[in-house]
């Protein structure tokens, strides 16, 4: 997908999942579309485009952000993590399978990444903290009860294994 821009234009380098990637796109292109269209990382999902649903969430330097409202030019120095960037045995991935969270599954990568952020700040969140922290993401299938269970399970696993 990466082509040399002969006009000497807009090649921008970003760091995705620990790999430097060159992108030929306008600097103000939302990161969401850069990841999906330019880099083919389609686990990052488009749903609302206005930072309302949280489904396009990625980690930028460890912090959950909505990639639909982050511009390419603003993340050149940052480390971007998508769901592929978490190891397969990451507690959140293990918990999501153990608790059989996804239904359609479309929103889950974003919600899982927001969970990673949550657990990095609150390793043992209370129910109230989970409600507060996860209240701004949308899951139309209604997997919320299982998300709650999986978050608690991931927290327990992390505590046990000294995450």
């Amino acid at each position: 997908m990466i082509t040399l821009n002969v006009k000497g234009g807009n090649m921008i380098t970003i760091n995705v999942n620990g790999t430097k990637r060159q992108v030929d796109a306008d600097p103000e292109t939302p990161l969401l579309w850069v990841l999906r269209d330019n880099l083919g990382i389609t686990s990052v999902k488009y749903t609302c485009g206005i930072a309302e649903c949280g489904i396009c969430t990625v980690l930028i330097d460890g912090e959950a952000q909505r990639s639909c409202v982050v511009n390419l030019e603003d993340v050149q120095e940052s480390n971007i993590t998508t769901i592929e960037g978490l190891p397969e045995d990451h507690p959140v991935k293990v918990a999501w399978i153990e608790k059989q969270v996804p239904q359609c599954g479309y929103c889950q990568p974003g919600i899982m990444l927001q969970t990673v952020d949550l657990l990095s700040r609150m390793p043992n969140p209370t129910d109230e903290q989970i409600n507060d922290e996860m209240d701004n993401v949308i899951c139309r299938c209604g997997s919320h009860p299982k998300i709650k269970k999986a978050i608690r399970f991931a927290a327990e696993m992390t505590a046990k294994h000294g995450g």
Partner: protein
Amino acid sequence: MKTDITRRSFLKQSSLVIAVTAFSSPLRLFNVSPVKAASELPFKPHAFLEIATDDTITVWVGQTNLGQGTHTGIPMVIADELDADWESIRVKPAPAGEPFKDPLWHAQFTGGSTSIRHRWDLLRTVGAAARQMLVEAAAQQWGLTAGQFTTENGQVVHSDGRRLSYGKLVETAQKLPVPENPPLKQAGDYRIIGTARERLDIPDKVMGKTVYGIDFTVPGMCIAVVARPPHYGASYQSYDEKAAMAVKGMVKVVPLENRIAVCAETTYAAMQGRETLNVKWSKGSQPDLNDDTVDALFKEHLEKLGAVAKTSGDVKKALAEATQTIEQSYKLPYLSHAPAEPINCSAHVEKERCRIWIPTQRQTATQHTASKLTGLPIEKVEVMTTPAGGGFGLRGEQDPVVDSVLLSKALSRPVKVIWSREDDFANDYFRPASQCRIKAGLDKDGLLVAWSHKVAAPSVMNRLMPQFVKNGVDPDAVSGIRDMPYSIPNQLVNYVMVNLPIPVGFWRSVGFSVNALAVESFMDELAHAAGKDPVQFRLAHMEKGSRPYNILSLLAEKGGWNRPVPNGRARGVAVNACFESFAAHMAEVSVNKKGNITVHKMVCAIDCGTAVYPDAIRAQAEGGVVMGMSTAFHERVRFENGGVKTANYDDYPVLTMSEVPEIEVHIAKSNLKAGGVGEPVVPSVAPAVANAIFKATGVRLRELPFQRELLIKG
């Protein structure tokens, strides 16, 4: 069916493949192994089941994977009758084709909670037939006629102790005819049906590997977004093609009938191009259409006589003679499906074929749409169903198919049409709004003697299947009313069709969730008027021991209806019967002085016959509570200036984490035929909550979404 294809040497590709006729009355299965072996081309599975020599078993599923669990549930049914080793099961999405058509409705689609209930015999027979062929193959290979043959875990076992795995029997089995009426298991013999199984599609979804329709790509594909009229019936008057084409990555601007497609190399470029297109639209067919005029129109229609959808006994007389009569009206808004994955479709039209990749709920309709537009015969339209990011009924609509096929033809390359979220809200085929009035009479014992119910609502069927609208009655518009689970001696149901340019479509549970709000709230009002307990009042109008009677009783027992309610809380119940299943909900709520409602707990009881895949049933029931509560508290599409005002999720909030209560699900034990699940778990949610709110506050909320201001005290 005999095949004249000469059997070729069965090399390493040999396998036992069983196909099935679509029009399965009587059910007919075919052994297509020779066809597969003889085929020069890569095998196109028009089969249900393939057993390979390495013991792997592939099940093709023609149902759409919407996350409802059928891509595990369907293989579970087949694997059980086959006595397969569950670990050897692989599931693959099937292309559109005859074998995957619904055996009763003769089209391939996913809707009406039919995936298993319409295939209950078919799926079991496919597994049982293959099992019997493998047993016969074992007898042949061993040269045994006497003794007892059994099967377990992917092996045929003889009473003398020898055993062979299915894979070792395939070469013999594939030469056998398919038995016509293989014996099916008794419920007590199930080893996979009704057990806990991990869903086969979950690991990929968690790892981010699942390719949804919107993610699908092929080399050379371009992306199209379409500028659609912002007002119903509007047409474009001018647009700035030059400005749009100046956007980097633009391919072409293609005007279509009443809309303009903007095609680009990337999604973002296409969206940017559409923004710069600066389309000027005409005012449309009904520029004064807005929330108020729509509401007034429904009210006006409610005053009309309407078509008779049901009449029994003499309602007028019974009402006149009743000890007590009460009358109330209920009102529900238009709802959007709002699935997480926006509508999309990829198409590649070539000279000899048309390929379509789409998260559709209606494969056969998609084939017909593309066939009509391309002039290609149906069998040259290949439809590949991708996993869908939610659907809830919307994904049967054909607009994205039409546009992607037309654009692929115009550009001679693969085209993926994507709707933005704003397109999705503006162009949804909404759940119909509805207003109704009910008048009922109680006798001196507080029992129902008459129920007169008039509904004013738009008709989905009138647009999609007008042949089912008989004498002015859309059956879906009155579902759950004329077939409510109560016996009442005198009933009259009237329907007034509301015709507006606002398109309406199937929305999870269709008319049942609309009408359950009125029926089940009103049952509560009647119980209150009769001075009776809401559960006892309902049971008094049901046949003792019937399935609705039993499910409501189970709910009351498991939910602790007769146990004390925690301080400050109140409970409400509702029950519904639809899609061959029976469900009931109990809500436990509290309401503070500011009118803030907290739902602490929801208990769901469901009788869906044989519970094939209990984990998926629980997941659907939890999701049903969330969606039902979402409609109760938040959802409403707004209109202005002859079009849709609601633009995005900020205008259309859905239920979120802090509002989701503790949810308990109880599945009734049953050996009966499997019923529906995805839809029956929705209708009784909102009325259960409304009834609990009444119990807590004495205020009856008769409109969705709930108007909390009515609950503010002081």
